[in-house]
């Protein structure tokens, strides 16, 4: 029970250490979110539909900008928490592991050493598990970069819409785009985008090396006959190439004449082309 209390205390200490990856903001984010609440009311669409002309256009823009601001604020808080949690976990658990290891080393009682060592292993295991499952290890930075890129892409689309009339870009369309903007700032959205890009790259790479032919050098009687045939008249090389096309073979004349795999077909080609 005693060593459990040591672990618990170290975890509590780890929770106290705080380092932020982003600077503290001067404004009260929660207060600002409260002030934006009217733009999230269920009746925004009916209010929008009641308006006419320039009023309608300016109301659409007002709602859109307010909701964009709210999404940005939540995104900022999300990134900040993600960054702080990760740092706290690393600092706290690393310190715990070092302390437990040191306590195990200086202890003269073998039973106590074993307890400290097993406690250190437990903390290390817990840290590895949390890192892998929650924060995707060191890919966090890449994921945040991907989220920022995704958000910018959707934001450009929304700004383009806001420059259009309310008929061409009604509020409902804008709200759908804002939802996409929110989704673009999620870890799942970032992972989906990275997977999509990786899939496209894989497809391109496969397309480049799709046609690879490998064979062993193996000369036959037909090789010599066909080599004489194509060197006698340059046009005969083209005749042999055309014959290969007719056979639906994607292979150069040289490989056809020298690869073991084509031995039987070479005899057929010699019979059909040279004896004509």
């Amino acid at each position, binding site marked *: 029970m005693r060593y459990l209390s040591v672990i618990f205390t170290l975890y509590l200490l780890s929770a106290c250490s705080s380092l932020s990856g982003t600077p503290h903001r001067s404004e009260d984010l929660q207060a600002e979110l409260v002030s934006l609440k009217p733009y999230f009311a269920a009746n925004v669409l009916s209010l929008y539909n009641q308006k006419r002309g320039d009023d309608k256009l300016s109301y659409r823009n007002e709602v859109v900008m307010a909701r964009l601001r709210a999404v940005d604020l939540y995104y900022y808080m999300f990134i900040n928490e993600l960054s702080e949690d990760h740092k706290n976990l690393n600092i706290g658990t690393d310190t715990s592991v070092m302390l437990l290891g040191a306590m195990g080393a200086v202890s003269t009682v073998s039973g106590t050493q074993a307890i400290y060592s097993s406690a250190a292993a437990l903390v290390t295991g817990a840290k590895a598990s949390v890192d892998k499952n929650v924060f995707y290890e060191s890919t966090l930075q890449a994921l945040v970069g991907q989220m920022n890129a995704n958000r910018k892409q959707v934001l450009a689309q929304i700004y383009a819409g806001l420059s259009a009339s309310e008929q061409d870009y009604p509020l409902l369309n804008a709200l759908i785009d804002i939802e996409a903007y929110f989704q673009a700032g999620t870890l799942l959205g970032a992972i989906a985008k990275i997977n999509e890009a990786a899939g496209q790259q894989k497809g*391109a790479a496969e*397309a*480049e*090396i799709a*046609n*690879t*032919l*490998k*064979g*062993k*050098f*193996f000369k036959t009687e037909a090789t010599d006959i066909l080599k004489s045939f194509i060197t006698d008249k340059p046009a005969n*090389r083209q005749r042999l*190439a055309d014959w290969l096309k007719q056979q639906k073979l*994607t*292979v*150069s*004349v*040289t*490989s056809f*004449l*020298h*690869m073991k795999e084509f031995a039987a077909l070479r005899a057929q080609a010699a019979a059909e082309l040279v004896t004509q």
Partner: protein
Amino acid sequence: MNGKKKKQAVRIEELTDIPASELESLEESYRLDGAIDIKKVQQDDDLWTLIVTFAV
């Protein structure tokens, strides 16, 4: 236009176990077939491999 240059699609043929004496004539023959790149790899003292690239 996304600014990225589209990569050229290629077809590769790899002929292995080539006696050294045949190497030069095979290279010449592959060039007549329109090869855009030919790489020679020595397997051992006598045998070679030719890796030939064709544009698709």
